[in-house]
């Protein structure tokens, strides 16, 4: 009897080890996205499709500094979307929160005069406040007024964009009407560079990664994180267990907003060697793309803070590759196509993946059963496989 149990334990252990969950499904989605992107390129311009694909997939390696530079804001918006996801909320409003954070940081940069060491920190924190405000609104509407957070945050994406562009245009300190964009932010408010030669990497990416790790700790090790996840899994059970659902919804959205706001602050306060594009903003009534890229980052990272750090780097890598693909006649938008496809497939890759996983598990189970057949008599075996099926499920 003892022997039999041991065998069963071993068997179920080895089966459990094969984990066909998030990671493989993510890889599957990425693969499908790249394949689809390749077909789009093939359709658009057959001759250069292979070269284009190579640039998209590997081009980023030659621009590592830029990859890190552009990964910072989408890492923050990714964390924002992912954090809300854990609670079962879909924060599609990362764009608006990002824009608000950016504006608040800019305001602090132009309007306040502080010593160099303090100014940029103050601006970042003020940016965080801006994002937090814009995150509070959908949270409040959801918790108190039962309005779907998706609609609210989309509406506030537009409202935020119009407001910020209006505020900027009406301020003579910030707006330079001959350039049709804002003035360059003063030196004292720029995030210090990390000092790596020939790249624009600054302190922002370090902060962003630290915040990611901090979020991981909050989610895994604190009561608050536990409550969030519990509410995300089953709202009614969490409410029944005495967790304050409404308060948690508002808090989650505020934190998510703060994260996006930080992303906006990191983006606007980061100087780069690329002329004209950094530390200034052009109010042209367009919703910030970094917010939507955050959704891709969060989904690809399976809403796990550490996963999001890597997926932000990966998406940024793809984007750099996409910019490089203009060398062979494509446009950077090809990467947005690839990213959208990746999200589309990652939404149901889990299911495809589970099907493949089940198939392989069944095969393994068969071979295992053959070995065990020699060890135990038939009667026990049926019990064992019954047990095992439960384990596998």
């Amino acid at each position, binding site marked *: 009897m003892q022997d039999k149990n041991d065998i069963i334990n071993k068997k179920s252990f080895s089966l459990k080890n094969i984990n066909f969950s998030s990671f493989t499904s993510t890889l599957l989605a990425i693969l499908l996205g790249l394949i689809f992107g390749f077909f*789009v390129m093939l359709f658009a311009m057959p001759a250069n499709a292979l070269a284009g694909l190579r640039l998209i997939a590997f081009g980023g390696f030659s621009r590592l500094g830029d990859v890190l530079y552009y990964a910072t804001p989408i890492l923050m918006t990714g964390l924002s979307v992912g954090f809300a996801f854990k609670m079962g909320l879909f924060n599609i409003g990362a764009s608006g929160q990002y824009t608000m954070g950016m504006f608040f940081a800019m305001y602090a940069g132009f309007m306040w005069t502080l010593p160099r060491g303090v100014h940029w920190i103050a601006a970042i924190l003020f940016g965080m406040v801006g994002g937090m405000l814009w995150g509070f609104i959908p949270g409040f509407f959801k918790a108190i007024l039962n309005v779907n957070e998706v609609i609210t945050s989309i*509406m506030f994406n537009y*409202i935020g964009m*119009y407001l910020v562009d*209006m505020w900027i245009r009406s301020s003579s300190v910030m707006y330079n009407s001959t350039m049709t964009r804002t003035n360059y932010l003063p030196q004292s408010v720029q995030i210090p560079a990390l000092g790596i030669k020939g790249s624009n990497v600054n302190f922002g990416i370090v902060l962003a990664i630290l915040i990611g790790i901090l979020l991981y700790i909050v989610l895994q090790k604190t009561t608050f994180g536990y409550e969030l996840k519990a509410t995300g899994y089953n709202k009614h059970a969490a409410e029944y267990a005495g967790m304050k659902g409404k308060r948690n919804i508002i808090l989650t959205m505020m934190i998510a907003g703060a994260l996006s706001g930080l992303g906006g602050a990191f983006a606007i306060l980061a100087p780069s060697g690329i002329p004209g594009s950094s530390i200034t903003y052009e109010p042209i009534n367009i919703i910030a793309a970094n917010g939507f890229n955050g959704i891709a980052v969060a989904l690809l990272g399976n809403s796990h803070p550490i996963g999001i750090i890597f997926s932000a780097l990966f998406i940024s890598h793809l984007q750099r590759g996409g910019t490089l693909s203009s060398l062979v006649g494509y*446009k950077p938008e090809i990467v947005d196509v690839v990213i959208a496809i990746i999200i589309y497939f990652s*939404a149901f890759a889990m*299911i495809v993946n589970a099907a493949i996983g089940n198939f392989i598990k069944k095969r393994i189970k068969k071979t295992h059963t053959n070995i065990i057949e020699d060890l135990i008599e038939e009667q026990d075996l049926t019990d064992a496989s019954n047990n095992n099926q439960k384990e596998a499920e």
Partner: protein
Amino acid sequence: MSTLYYLIQNMLPVATSLLLVALGGMFSEVGGVINIALEGIMLFGAYFAALFVYLVQGSGMNPQVILLLGMLVAAVAGLIYSLLLSFAAVTMKANQTITGTALNMLIPAVVLLFSKMFFMSDGVTTNINFYIRKVPVLGDIPIIGPLFFQRTYLTVMIGFALLIIATLVFYKTRFGLRLRACGEHPHAADSVGINVHKMRYLGTCISGILGGIGGFFYSVGIMDGNVNGHTGVAGFGFLALAVMIFGQWRPGKIFLGALFFAFLRTLAYSISLIPFLYNLGIDQTYYKMLPYVATMIVLAFTSKKSRAPKAEGIPYDKSLR
């Protein structure tokens, strides 16, 4: 009085576009599929229809015939694009919000990519005049004539016809009832022999058709024949969703909602023509925000007693009870 005429004449094309897309969203959602992808469906339909118009505009066809043909192209394009949503949401049981978002992100990128590569611009611009100065006979009726049959588009009349058809389908046909059953209680529907998956596919297909047409009407009536990837349809897909919620998933109320939002938007863009509002000296941007702010205010008051289809957003799984 002429200002009022002007406002209503300009409001109707906007309302038509919103109305059709919101009706599309309604058909999808009463079947149980949340259609966040309306924005993408609109742009997809509009883009293909605009491409079609671009290709035939030199052939000397009657503009109104081209409009009708373009509408068909838009409907087919929207239908095809919506199949991507229903495949993911119904067959693959994927998260409908995420899939919809992916579809919304995909199409502006595709439009920008191809337009930049082949047209050297952000989109297509057609230069054909669909505008109707005055409908013969009907346009001469006092009051009603200038309100509805002067300086208008054929789209307005088509939109109104489609509203009537949609209402009839929704309330008076077996299909409408079955579709609603699938959104409220799919298991009950299944138990009496209704194929839930098929109904959900059909509901989403209708939303694709209406969404595509609505997108094309947006580009005709509001953007003057331009379709581009940068502004897309300026959040109209989402506004339509708000109109749908405002209308509590019922065609009649959706019609009223569409008129209301269209009025606000038209007002926002014609402030300079209304001396009273213009003299207040409020920044015009505030008026541009007005439709979005109004959406939020309206939703804040209507969502508490929301009558959303009970099973919306939940993939149908036979084995669950």
